[in-house]
Every structure is written in C-alpha cells, then in structure tokens.
C-alpha cells in the first residue's frame, strides 16, 4: 500500500439551499475541490459519491454517474457509496483504498444530501429504517429515542446531567458562528437550550442536529505526488472501520459504542499514533450525547468522564482538545451523505491553517469519526499535515 494525501477540498454552504438540487450542490463542491487542488486539466481515475437516500428523497439514482456527466470526468470509474449517515466517510475510505492500492492515481470523493425539500416526518421515518426491522423499527423506535435511552444510561451510571448536553450544544453553536459554511450561525444559551421542546425525554430539540442540505468534496492522490499539486498536503495516516450488532439492546453494553472503540483502535494502530497525539477532532454529534460518548470511546477521555471534559472546557475551541471546531453536526448541519466528507474538509482546513476565526493553533494531527446506523457501523480517519 502506498501513502495517500488530500490535495484539494471544497464544500457548499450547509443549510436550506433553495433553488439548488442535489446534483447542483455535488457539482459545486466537486468543482471547488478540483480548483483547490489545481487539477482542472487532469484526468481523474475514479469518483466516489457518499449519499444515503437520493432515491427516496429526490427521486434520483446512480448519482455518481450523473456527477461524472455534469463535470465531464469520463471515463473515470464512478460509484455511489451508501453506509447510512457514515456514507461520506465510507466514500473517503473507498477513495483512499483506490489510491493506496495503485488502482487509481487521482480520485474525487464527494458527499451530498438534499433533505430540506422532504417533510420532517418522512425523514425521521426513513432514518429509522436503519434500525432492526422487526426488533426495533416495528415497535416505533426513532433515532432520537435511541439517543435518549443512551443519555438515560449515562445519567444513571456516570452522573451526566441535562446541563452537560446543553453545554455541548452551546459550544458547538459558538463554533458554528465562526464557520461561514455552517447551517446555523446563531449563539444559544444554556437556559435557551434547556427550555427547548422535548423530543425524546431527556433529549430536547437543541440537543439534536438540524435537517440540512449540503455537499463536500476532496481530491486524493498518492503522497509521493502530492507536493506537485499542493504546498501543504494532508496525509490520510489511519483508517478504521468497525461494525456491531444492529439492535442496540443486543450490544455487549448499550452504554458503549463498541464500533467506535474498534474503529478508533484500528485507525490509531495504522497511524502509529495515540489519542494524546491528536490536536483537533470532528465527532458525529447528531445528538449532543454522542459527542460525549464518542470522545470517550475514541480514547480521548476515560469512560464516564467525557462530560467532565466538557465542563472543564477541554473540548472548547481554546481548550486542550478542541472538538467540532466546525460547529459539528449540531451547527454545521447534517446532510447525511455529506457529513463524513465535510468533517474531513474541516480538518484539512485546520491542518493547513486555513480555518479562519475557528483555527486551532498549530494543529498537525486530526481525527474524524463518522457514525453510521445508531453506532453499528463507524468509520474513523486520522489525518496528518505533511511538511
């Protein structure tokens, strides 16, 4: 296997993108990434597009072939990659494998989802179909319900309080305010969050991510070639993916995200790094509880202590280990197929020192965790600045 680098990245603003359809935003993000890499006149060997539900939401299938058509990348190989809300990171992993194996020299990875044109009820139901068809879905489960049951376990075992969820939300909104690409650019208060509508007790509206449109894209090539295109390429130092049983009740311990633990372990082993080597992190806070639990199961904090780190400001933008400088899914938004790619776009900007007001000073190594299903399929990437 050869080393793989990211030489270009781009994304659309996330939010309610009126007048732009799924293909428009995939095209926009892809062209930005191609321009950023300076490879406009080069031939791409492969294209991977992360997307969860274009067929269901916008009545379009085979979107990777459609993207190639719109931006004239023929005869590049093209595949749509679906892994629930981790479709984006799975697309990145496929791009990595294509370059690492030598099968491809220049690869475009894009991720996108157009969600705001559908009713919230329809989206909640479609997302619920990721759960076990008979043991969970038929009983009326929703993703907020699964997140709420995890929260309840954390409250019982580890002394987490609702206030901690509000603190994560306040932090991520503050970061989102500094991110021009974020869906929600508005500061919130602890009291405001704790006064918001109950969705699934103890989870309130402000402890969940919004429904968004958006796309993000990356250009990958071999690390040996990367310096030809880019002053500060970012190497994909580690990739880890792991699965777990589908039904949450069947997990060894329903308070442990085992797929996150195993994926993180694999990614760290491959990168020959440890959690203490990481400077900046993007986690999958579709619900604020998940940022806390993932921060522990990735190995950054002891089990049951993630909320203490939030309390102490460790995960704030100016803390020892900033988590979700982009605003996370909470504020940047969560167009599901785009999220895993957007996390990596943010981290590439952070490692290049191009993240503006939300720049984590001197960041050299970063980790992104993209969470599929309700934690039964997690993809983690570790990135490192090359210079």
């Amino acid at each position, binding site marked *: 296997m050869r080393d793989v680098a990211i030489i270009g990245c781009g994304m659309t603003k996330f939010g309610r993108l009126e007048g732009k359809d799924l293909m428009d935003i995939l095209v926009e993000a892809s062209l930005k990434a191609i321009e950023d890499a300076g490879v406009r006149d080069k031939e791409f060997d492969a294209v991977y597009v992360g997307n969860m539900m274009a067929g269901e939401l916008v009545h379009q299938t085979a979107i990777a072939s459609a993207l190639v058509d719109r931006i004239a990348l023929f005869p590049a190989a093209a595949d749509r990659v679906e892994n629930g809300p981790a479709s984006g990171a799975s697309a990145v992993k496929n791009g990595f494998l294509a370059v690492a194996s030598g099968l491809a020299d220049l690869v475009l990875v894009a991720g996108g989802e157009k969600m705001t044109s559908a009713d919230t009820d329809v989206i909640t139901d479609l997302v619920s179909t990721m759960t*076990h068809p008979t043991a969970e879905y038929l009983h009326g489960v929703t993703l907020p319900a699964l997140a709420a049951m995890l929260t309840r376990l954390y409250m019982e075992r580890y002394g987490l309080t609702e206030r901690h969820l509000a603190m994560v939300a306040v932090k991520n909104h503050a970061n989102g305010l500094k991110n021009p690409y974020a869906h929600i650019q508005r500061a919130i208060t602890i009291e405001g969050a704790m006064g918001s509508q109950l969705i699934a007790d103890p989870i309130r509206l402000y402890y969940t991510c919004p429904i968004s449109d958006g796309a993000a894209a990356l250009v990958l090539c071999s690390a040996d070639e990367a310096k030809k295109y880019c002053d500060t390429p970012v190497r994909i130092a580690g990739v880890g993916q792991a699965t777990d049983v589908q039904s949450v009740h069947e997990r060894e311990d329903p308070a442990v995200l085992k797929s996150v633990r195993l994926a993180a372990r694999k990614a760290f082993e491959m990168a020959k790094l440890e959690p203490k080597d990481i400077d900046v992190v993007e986690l999958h806070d579709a619900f604020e509880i998940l940022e806390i639990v993932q921060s522990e199961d990735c190995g950054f904090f002891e089990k049951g202590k993630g909320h203490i780190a939030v309390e102490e400001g460790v995960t704030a933008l100016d803390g020892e280990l900033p988590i979700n400088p982009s605003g996370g899914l909470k504020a940047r938004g969560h167009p599901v197929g785009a999220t895993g790619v957007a996390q990596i776009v943010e981290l590439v900007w952070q490692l290049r020192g191009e993240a503006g007001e939300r720049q984590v000073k001197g960041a050299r190594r970063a980790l992104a965790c993209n969470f599929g299903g309700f934690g039964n399929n997690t993809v983690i990437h570790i990135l490192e600045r090359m210079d």
Partner: protein
Amino acid sequence: MDQKLMGFRCKSCGRIMYPKHERCVSCKGMNMEEVELGNQCTLVTYTKLYTLPEGIEMPPLTLGIVDFGGVRAFGQIATDEPKIGMKLRPVWGKLRRLGDKDIYGFRFEPVESG
C-alpha cells in the same frame, strides 16, 4: 391469546439471542432452537417519546430496553411512569398502525404487585 416472546438459543454454545441471527453472534453456530424468554424482565433504560412515529396516537410513547437475565429486548413500555429497575412482563397486543396494516407484537407492562 397464548403468545410467548421467543428467543433463539445456539445449540453449539448455548448463547440466547433476540432477535434471530442466522449464525450465532458468539460462535457462528447455525443450529438454533426457540426458547421462551420468560414472563419477567427489568427495565434497563427508557425514553418518553414526544415526536411520534406513524401510527401512534397519543404522546408520550414510552420505549425501553428490558433485560430477561442476560438477554435483552426492546419495545413499548406500558406506563407513563417508567423507572430503571422496575419489573415488567411481556404482553401481546397491537403496537401501532403502519400504512394500512395493524402491527402486533409484545410490549412490556409493569407487574402490579410490588
């Protein structure tokens, strides 16, 4: 109706699973036998859901994970006052309406006498 909530026991290693897997999640064994999960379970965690899925009329819908002494299940909890550790028992009935179909299954109701 004399319905029992059934789990699946791997004949190779003895692990009981719910729901069914074609291969045992512990040993990959493929011979399963149905076993009753029993009449008593305890509540492990729960939520009261206010944003309801299709076919549920009145909020909140209480949902939870229950434990039958090692093997767990998920479902509707027939009380508005759930408490972790409370004793429950599975009861067959209509769970929700989905499309044009009534969905039947087990929900878990509190065992009356404390």
